[in-house]
């Protein structure tokens, strides 16, 4: 039995050691592994963004901030993390889940005047799944059939 216990000990220490080491490495790379920055991080200079570098900004689309051009392809909206706000310009097709008050991740360049020109807009879905009736009951009637964004 002794060699078996030894092998078990080697495996347990090995796996635990590797896991701990792996977590330390991931923790060290933490800032490089985030998919996007928040408006606060960018606007308050918590992350250094070199001029002209492509970055991703994530947050909520501020309610009532979406403005579409008459031809429908140019969109202006404000991304907020409920602390700082960042105006975004975008030209292109928006994903189905792009809604006011919902999460969004947008890739593009920060301009010198602290606005953001996006080349890609991705909708970030939250973890809530429920039927429309339940959502209506929760929110007090903000549901629109077909799931269309309400025009401001």
């Amino acid at each position: 039995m002794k060699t078996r216990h030894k092998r078990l000990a080697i495996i347990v220490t090995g796996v635990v050691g590797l896991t701990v080491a792996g977590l330390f490495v991931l923790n060290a790379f933490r800032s490089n592994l985030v998919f996007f920055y928040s408006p606060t991080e960018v606007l308050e200079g918590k992350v250094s963004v070199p001029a002209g570098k492509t970055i991703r900004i994530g947050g909520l689309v501020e309610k009532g901030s979406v403005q579409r051009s008459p031809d429908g392809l140019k969109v202006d909206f404000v991304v907020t993390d409920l602390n700082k706000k960042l105006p975004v310009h975008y030209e292109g097709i928006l994903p189905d889940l792009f809604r006011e008050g919902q999460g969004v991740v947008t890739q593009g360049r920060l301009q010198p005047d602290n606005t953001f020109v996006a080349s890609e807009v991705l909708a970030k879905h939250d973890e809530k799944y429920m039927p429309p009736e339940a959502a209506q009951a929760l929110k007090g009637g903000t549901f629109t059939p077909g799931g269309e964004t309400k025009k401001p």
Partner: protein
Amino acid sequence: MQYMHKYASPKFFYTLAGKLTPWMAALTAVLLVAGLYLGLFVAPVDFQQGESYRIMFIHVPAAWMSMFIYVCMAGAGAIALVWNVKLFEMFAGNCAPVGASFTFLALVTGSLWGKPMWGAWWAWDARLTSELILFFLYIGYMALEASIDDPRRAARASAILALVGVVNIPVIHFSVEWWNTLHQPASVGKVGTPSIHPSMLAPLLLMSLGFTFYFFTVALMRMRNEILERERHTTWVAQLLESKS
């Protein structure tokens, strides 16, 4: 330990698995049919995503299975390494193709959902990337196992690879909490406020259970094949083949 060796004898296990598989296959079929029916026809539409969310009834259980099977595979590999049990070696080896299939299914269904919902087929966020690494781990495991001729040596080498890869499992699970990711956090398993409606949770759990039974059914069937192949020179296999012919 004596019990383990009795039940883990290939001959005993071959007979036991042969009796179990038809029942497990039937249970798998019932669970999957019920889950798909409830998920695709009974569950209501989602308030944000409409009908498109229904792909999660495949995607989420497949992703859970991809991690569950990996843990089974590494655990069985560790038991095989420590106690030298052949049956666990075989189980670990037969987990890999099933696990790789579920990982592939999770990646593909996620991608199909991601295009209309997020606006992208793929994003290099922590959750998606770590799940892709899991897929590569399965492929690497199978490649390593296939490249060594002696099955016992192959099982030992690949078990060590599987154990090293275990690091990736908590990374996949917690990636959505540790980092900003495009992928949403978990809906199921949180204590307190449920973020998924019961009418949608029921088919999700049925599908997960169905996938679990599918995995064990397939694993047992594959193991029976492997037992026959590995023990083909023994008298009990010869007798078995004689009685069948």
